[in-house]
């Protein structure tokens, strides 16, 4: 348990409802996320956890409700804005850029910060005419720090497609970190990992949370992990919120036990 001071609310979700045609994915979900905390969203499959993140990311547009980030309130988000506001995200089923090398994948996380325009990039050259090359090198340096942090130096140049699952998950995280996010949304970062990999990953998450003070919103199945590393937990079931509070509070919540813990393991 990290001994850090929890700040005030950064991200606030108010009665979000999301429908696909007839199917209702989310109904009136509200919860808030405080600065520096690790916030977990749990729930059985199809509870709408990923949909929730997709709403925050602006991948899906909820029909009702609003999301406010640092005071600004949005009817629905636009991915670009979200990214600019400093919300990064990893994906449940890997969404890496298979055709690109590890370095390039993580470099894409820096793209928002790249200033030089298309033409400058076109005339990029070693003789520092036009800033493009210098800029590339600067960002590359930052990326190298992340690579060190995630202990994947050896795989730098490898095409991500060829790397084992666990590593790919790390690179996914690395790409998100490259954005220097204030809030980091992690969609099942440990799904399908063995114990060791899980430990590594939770270590990374906590480090990120401590060292960079990044706020973390975490979707996870593994109750053990969740209870260990998260400060507060939201429980979703069939697109409804059935619990919200500290791990212990949630653990003792009747609905949750019946709906979730009861059914799954």
């Amino acid at each position, binding site marked *: 348990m990290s001994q850090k001071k929890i700040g005030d609310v950064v991200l606030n979700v108010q009665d979000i409802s999301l429908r696909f*045609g007839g199917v209702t994915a989310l109904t009136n979900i509200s919860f808030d996320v405080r600065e520096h905390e690790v916030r977990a969203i749990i729930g059985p499959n199809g509870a709408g956890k990923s949909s929730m993140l997709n709403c925050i990311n602006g*991948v899906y547009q909820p029909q009702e409700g609003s999301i406010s980030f640092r005071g600004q309130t949005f009817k629905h988000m636009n991915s670009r804005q979200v990214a600019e506001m400093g919300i990064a995200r990893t*994906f*449940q*089923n890997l*969404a890496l850029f298979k055709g690109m090398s590890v370095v390039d994948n993580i470099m894409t996380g820096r793209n928002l910060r790249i200033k030089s325009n298309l033409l400058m990039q076109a005339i990029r050259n070693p003789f520092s005419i036009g800033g493009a090359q210098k800029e590339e090198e600067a960002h590359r340096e930052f990326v190298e720090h992340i690579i060190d942090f995630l202990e994947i130096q050896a795989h730098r140049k490898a095409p991500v497609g060829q790397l084992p699952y666990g590593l790919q998950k790390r690179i996914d995280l690395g790409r998100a970190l490259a954005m220097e996010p204030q809030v980091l949304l992690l969609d099942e970062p440990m799904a399908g990992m063995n114990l060791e990999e899980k430990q590594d990953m939770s270590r990374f998450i906590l480090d990120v949370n401590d060292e960079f003070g990044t706020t973390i919103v975490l979707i996870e199945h593994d109750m053990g992990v969740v209870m260990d590393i998260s400060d507060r937990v939201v429980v979703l079931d069939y697109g409804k919120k059935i619990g919200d509070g500290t791990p212990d509070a949630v653990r003792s919540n009747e609905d949750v036990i019946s709906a979730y813990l009861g059914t799954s393991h």
Partner: protein
Amino acid sequence: MAFFLEALFGGLMAGMLYSLVALGFVLIFKASGVFNFAQGAMVLFAALAMARFSEWIPIWTGIHSRFLANVMAFVLAAALMGIVAWLVERLVLRHLVNQEAVTLLMATLGISYFLDGLGQTIFGSNIYPINVGMPKDPLMLFERTFDGGVLLNLEDIYAGSVAALMVAALSLFFQKTATGRALRAVADDHQAAQSIGIPLNRIWVIVWFVAGITALVAGIIWGSKLGVQFSLTTVALRALPVVILGGLTSVPGAIIGGLIIGVGEKLSEVFLGPFVGGGIEIWFAYVLALVFLLLRPQGLFGEKIIDRV
């Protein structure tokens, strides 16, 4: 007025034929998720086979009834399309399972080039007639009401009704027969279909075969109208907007789309064409489809796609 009717009618008939070709696209796309660019090449190939066989059979067998010769030619050509279907599955699709749609599209581009070459190598590249005894002369209606009357084309009517029959037959095949149901299952979800023991490979062969037959029918109709020649392949390019308009996955879409495109392009050509120098029908059809695409990406009857992350 009379003229408008004629243009309209001509458009409808052309549309019927487009939809027949479009049908081939839809069938294959539904069942294998492949956007079969080779449909046009198949039309040419099938038509060439039909034309040449009906010419050769009397020489080989000494049968001189044209009817018999045509029937045998049809059977042979159909068999040939069966072989083509089998080979395509064997040599191409089988090796490209679970590739992105675009890769498959390019593959079919390759197939179409191959078929074009093969067809002309085997059957030659001149104009060959297909004579299934379609009436050639026009039919005049309402000569009293309008000066000059309204010209109807018997051949078009026959062609149209054959196309309609074909469509009906296919929808029956899809709704009633076991294979049809299997095809629909495959169309809905490959994995699921496989898991309940539907052999994908066989299904694909069947679908391509059926598509081959539609190609053959389309080829015969166009062939007997215009003669069979390399330029038949352009028919496929004319039918693409139809598929886009109707939606890749919808049989009725192909029909309606065909009619809309057919009428649209003919009317545009005869009424707009003269003001802009004519020859607008091809791109008009495409632009029509394109505009439509922007309003409704999944087409007239296509299902909407939601991508999950």
